[in-house]
């Protein structure tokens, strides 16, 4: 209660002049009256006596302030006084206040947004108990997150550093709860998964390590709270119910708590199933294949007292044991630890780098905003020098005046910070409900929410920037000589070399140019990636994904059905060609395999000739995808299991393994099982895993020859590439009726290839371009306000001089040059500096933006043109004002 009373008295002091201050003023006045009474008695008339009494009293202002301090005019009271005074000043110049607050709101808002995204994705872990000791295990130099199941078992059983290690894998399957078979995203997890993570069930029970008794021994399902809520309407009776997963009976064991959606930030599953049932879920059992590294991710809690470095050493010793024991399967078995939330460094690495880059740019924006405000404040201090001089002459101390200036600066920055924070909260709310990927992908969203960290960050930024730009006019105030200023008035001191204000403007424009440059580089890269050569033509092609496993196909019925689908679709009117591929290029990564030269006899990973992307395709795939043939022949339907093994490779593969395209055609290479494959053709290079990759080797195998257990994707996930110039909607309908005519129970989805690319491979580049574009626009806005402020100020200060020039017969160009020459010069100077810096900085973008080369005449020209335009816009109004000076009026005024 005491505190409340204190606050109330503070508020009272803030809004009304304080009682003690009034009291004091009255006492001082009373003193002067008494003295005047005495003087009057000695014969002076009253007004003269009062004047004398005031002079005798001495520096009224000074004693008033000293008295204030003596009265216990404590910090807060003085502060409140300053705040009141500052608010009055700000109210008196609404234009200045508005510009200043908006500038800061932009700067601080941009930082708050980037910070809270960073906070959500990197700083703050997923909501699991003891998250600090939870690490994902990565393998090898390139920090691969995928492991094979046998390797996982060895790591789990042979390490001494972890409390427990669990593995998980993302997959999809068809779930039939009685009437409505639908596709679900699931995590296949090891039995110890929930126990290792220390998660307790919301309802029912979880499965445990003790439930695993070999392949397909644990047909259990755990539901996420969200799926239970939306698909079972919170029915507590689901526990114990048997449902069909890919037409196999599974028992629902329980429901996970609402706040647990797995450990991946961007991907929440619908259900969890035991990994030992992989064969039923995915149709293939890879649990005994040591060399088959799907996307099994591995994580665990470190034991208390074990450091990550110790754990890595421990894992590496297990790794060297594995290399020795299984030389044909395991190579490069060194390990590192990372956080699991972004699938290790697979997504986490680029994300961290990108966000760090973004944070840097946002920081630059704030710096530009501060430079902008600094110059505004310096100009304001120059205009106020008469007031400052007057206060100094009346006995106010410089310290006191500085304090007031800083109060004003911090006040502005706090208001700006608040506005910026509110804006960013709105933006973030939009972001957290934004689903960047369409329905085809698992539920993915940016789990951005705000927390105390963000508020503290914004507050600190506001305070820091307030002090930063508040410090600009300090020297000016310290050097104010009251006598000079009062005597001379405000003669516009113009044209004396570079002032601090000029430097600030140059710095600000340079920073803004950096921002504009980076956003242009990003935009240009984006444009280029839309039109670059992917090694296939996404235009006029539709991708039809089918999930044969969900419809009960397995074994030999898969390739047979695949051929039937291709034949049926080719008969659709308007369709030029149809090909199939197990996983189209640029579809959330690619499948890899290692290959050996024909001469290699010791088949082990360390002797591999190349790591190659691998596709299983139908004979017409190249035709349907419009991949250009360089040499040799495509496959035919006769390249089946009864024919010799053949492959088509790309140019990079031919160069790397065979030395040239000519040597490649007809040549042989070896697969990891030792079988020899003859290369029958060579195609152009393409983009396979990401848009920013360097050319990498690729092999294409006829799906009719692919052995059933090597990879899983090609077996069941069949993507048909349908090339047709027909209207997409008509085509879609035709495809739908054709496929349903073949098998009414076959789940499939179709999408234009170009659109699919936009949603997957281009996604990162699109987000990057958007973010950089926004920052670029903010930068451009800041440079406009900066140049405008400077130009408007210099014109207003020199109106008289300009008037004289006009009166003496100066031409319009000469007037303009006199008025704005300096602003334009600074603009040019800052732009050039910024352009050079920007060119250096855009190297940072290269990892996320496709071909982010700054040495691009279009980008250079674009930046120069933009800065010119900005300069033109910003100086337009001041120029008009300079041109319209009427010498007569101006000269009369002074």
């Amino acid at each position, binding site marked *: 209660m005491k505190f409340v009373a204190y606050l109330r008295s503070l508020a009272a002091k803030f809004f009304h002049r304080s009682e003690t201050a009034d*009291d*004091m003023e*009255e*006492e*001082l006045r*009373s*003193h002067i*009256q*008494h*003295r005047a*009474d005495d003087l009057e008695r000695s014969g002076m008339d009253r007004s003269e006596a009062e004047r004398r009494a005031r002079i*005798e*009293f*001495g*520096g*009224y202002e*000074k*004693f008033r302030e*000293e*008295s204030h*301090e*003596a*009265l*216990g005019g404590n910090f807060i009271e003085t502060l409140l006084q300053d705040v009141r005074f500052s608010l009055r000043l700000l109210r008196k110049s609404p234009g200045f206040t508005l510009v200043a607050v908006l500038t800061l709101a932009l700067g601080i808002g941009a930082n708050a947004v980037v910070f809270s995204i960073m906070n959500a994705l990197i700083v703050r872990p997923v909501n699991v108990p003891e998250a600090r000791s939870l690490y994902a295990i990565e393998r090898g130099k390139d920090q691969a997150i995928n492991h094979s199941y046998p390797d996982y078992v060895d790591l789990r059983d042979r390490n001494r550093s972890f409390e427990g290690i669990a593995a998980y894998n993302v997959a999809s399957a068809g779930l039939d709860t009685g009437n409505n078979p639908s596709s679900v995203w699931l995590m296949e997890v090891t039995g110890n998964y929930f126990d290792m993570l220390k998660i307790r069930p919301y309802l029912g029970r979880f499965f445990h390590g003790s439930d695993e008794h070999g392949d397909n021994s644990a047909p259990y399902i755990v539901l996420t709270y969200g799926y239970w809520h939306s698909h079972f309407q919170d029915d507590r009776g689901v526990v114990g119910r048997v449902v069909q997963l890919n037409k196999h009976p599974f028992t629902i064991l329980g429901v996970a708590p609402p706040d647990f959606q797995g450990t991946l930030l961007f991907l929440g599953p619908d259900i969890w199933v035991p990994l030992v049932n992989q064969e039923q879920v995915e149709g293939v059992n890879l649990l005994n294949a040591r060399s088959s590294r799907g996307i099994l991710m591995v994580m665990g809690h470190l034991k208390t007292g074990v450091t990550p470095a110790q754990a890595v050493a421990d894992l590496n010793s297990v790794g060297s044991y594995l290399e020795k024991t299984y030389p044909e399967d395991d190579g490069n078995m060194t390990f590192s630890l990372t956080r699991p939330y972004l699938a290790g460094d697979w997504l986490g690495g680029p994300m961290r780098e990108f966000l760090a880059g973004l944070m840097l740019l946002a920081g630059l924006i704030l710096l530009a905003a501060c430079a902008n405000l600094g110059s505004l404040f310096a100009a304001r201090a120059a205009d106020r020098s008469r007031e400052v001089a007057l206060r100094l002459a009346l006995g106010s101390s410089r310290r006191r005046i500085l304090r007031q200036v800083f109060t004003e600066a911090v006040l502005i920055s706090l208001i700006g910070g608040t506005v910026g924070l509110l804006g960013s909260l709105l933006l973030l709310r939009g972001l957290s409900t934004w689903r960047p990927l369409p329905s085809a992908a698992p539920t993915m969203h940016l789990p951005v929410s705000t927390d105390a960290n963000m508020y503290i960050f914004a507050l600190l930024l506001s305070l820091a920037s307030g002090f930063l730009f508040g410090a600009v006019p300090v020297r000016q105030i310290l050097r104010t000589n009251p006598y000079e200023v009062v005597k001379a008035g405000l003669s516009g001191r113009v044209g004396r070399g570079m002032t601090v204000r000029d430097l600030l403007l140059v710095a600000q424009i340079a920073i803004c140019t950096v921002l504009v440059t980076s956003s242009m580089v990003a935009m240009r890269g984006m444009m280029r990636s839309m039109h670059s050569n992917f090694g296939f033509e996404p235009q006029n092609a539709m991708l039809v994904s089918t999930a044969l496993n969900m419809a009960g196909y397995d074994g030999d019925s898969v390739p047979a059905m695949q051929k039937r689908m291709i034949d049926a679709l080719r008969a659709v009117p308007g369709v030029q060609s149809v090909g199939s591929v197990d996983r189209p290029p640029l579809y959330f990564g690619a499948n890899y395999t290692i290959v050996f030269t024909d001469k290699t006899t010791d088949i082990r990973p360390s002797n591999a000739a190349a790591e190659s992307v691998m596709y299983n395709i139908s004979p017409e795939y190249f035709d349907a995808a419009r991949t250009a043939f360089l040499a040799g022949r495509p496959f035919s339907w006769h390249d089946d299991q009864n024919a010799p093994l053949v492959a088509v490779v790309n140019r990079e593969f031919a160069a790397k393994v065979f030395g040239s395209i000519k040597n490649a055609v007809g040549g042989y290479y070896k697969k990891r099982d030792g079988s020899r494959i003859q290369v029958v053709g060579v195609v152009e290079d393409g983009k396979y895993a990401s848009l920013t990759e360097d050319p990498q080797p690729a092999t294409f195998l006829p799906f009719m020859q692919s052995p059933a257990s090597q990879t899983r994707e090609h077996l069941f996930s069949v993507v048909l590439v349908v090339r047709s110039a027909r209207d997409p909607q008509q085509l879609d309908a035709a495809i739908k009726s054709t496929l349903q005519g073949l098998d009414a129970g076959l789940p499939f989805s179709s999408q234009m290839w170009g659109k699919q690319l936009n949603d997957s491979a281009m996604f990162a580049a699109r987000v990057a371009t958007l973010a950089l574009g926004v920052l670029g626009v903010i930068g451009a806005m800041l440079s406009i306000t900066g140049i405008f402020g400077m130009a408007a100020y210099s014109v207003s200060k020199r109106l008289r001089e300009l008037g004289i020039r006009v009166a003496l017969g100066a031409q319009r160009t000469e007037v303009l040059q006199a008025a704005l020459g300096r602003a334009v010069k600074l603009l040019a100077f800052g732009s050039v500096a910024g352009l050079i810096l920007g060119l250096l900085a855009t190297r940072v973008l290269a990892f996320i933006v496709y071909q982010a080369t700054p040495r691009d005449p279009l980008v250079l020209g674009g930046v120069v043109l933009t800065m010119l335009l900005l300069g033109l816009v910003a100086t337009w109004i001041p120029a008009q004002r300079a041109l319209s000076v009427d010498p007569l009026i101006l000269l009369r005024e002074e």
Partner: protein
Amino acid sequence: MTDQAQLLPGTLDLLILKAVSLGPLHGYGVLLRIGQISGQALLIEQGALYPALFRLVRQGLLKASWGTSENNRRAKFYELTSIGRKRLQEETDGWNRLASAMASVLDAQPE
């Protein structure tokens, strides 16, 4: 002006305490009283009195209350508190000791 002495630092507080100890006074009255008892020998800048007065009030040596002056004007009157009276005694003793010591040093004759 020549017969007026500048105040030594720190002595203003003592002078105020002494002046007020003779009876409650308002600010201007304190000045008059000091002038009167020092025979106009001590010069105090009028405005400088108030920060000192407020300081003494804050230290609890003086207490203040509004009243009406002999000129029939509102004025704030100051009087000593018990702590103030004790402080005055201490300071007076200290000052006397210092003054007599200074005097005996300055009076010393060559032997």
